[in-house]
């Protein structure tokens, strides 16, 4: 009987902690897509309005990419804050 209890006690002494894992958060797909290439002016155009049109399109493209980068930073900061709260 004592032998069995001793074995039981020895087994209990070997116990370790169960790890609790927090999975890495997935970023929204709106953030993970790459920025498209800039639009090009038609090579044979002589019209300034057409050039202006393409340039403003590219500005718009830049603004969208900037918004994406800013939101990436915002996403990272907020997720890091959540993660830090769990691990403190």
């Amino acid at each position, binding site marked *: 009987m004592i032998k069995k209890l001793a074995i039981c006690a020895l*087994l209990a002494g*070997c116990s370790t902690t169960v790890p609790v894992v927090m999975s890495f958060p997935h970023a929204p797909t709106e*953030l993970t897509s790459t920025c498209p290439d800039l639009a090009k002016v038609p090579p044979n155009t*002589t019209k300034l309005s057409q*050039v202006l049109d393409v340039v403003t399109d590219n500005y718009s493209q830049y603004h969208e990419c900037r918004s994406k980068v800013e939101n990436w930073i915002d996403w990272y900061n907020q997720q890091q804050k959540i*993660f830090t709260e769990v691990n403190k």
Partner: protein
Amino acid sequence: MMWLISLIPVDYFLYAAWGMILLGLAFYVAAKLAALTVYYKIAELPLEILAIVSLGLGVYIYGDYSAQTVWQQRIAELQHEVEVAQQKSTVVNTQIVKQIQVQHKVIHDKQVVIQDRIKEVASNIDSECVVDKQAVDILNDASIYPIRSTQGVKP
């Protein structure tokens, strides 16, 4: 070894601990009683040894049970914290997606306004200025993403 322990209900460790402690006390009392008698005095030492071993094991198992209980509570707390964090994370993702959609709509709306303005003045500016092909080539060259074009690295 761990899977073997996990099969044993945690409360059984508590019963075993108290059982061993009570058994140890019983052995100790028996040893002291045996010491008072003439015939059983010889049993005093073995009973005391048994009492010490039983008490020692009982305290050890009780200590392990307490540690296990504390760890189980800590694990439950952590799991709860992780669940809350994952919910917060999902809320953040939803907010960010909405933010992006609103911002892109604002950018798109502004672009539409700008394009309308270009259309309004197109005939004027086209009549006053002729764009040289070299200017177009320079502009198009500038629009090429230099990292990918020189190093072959996809952004």
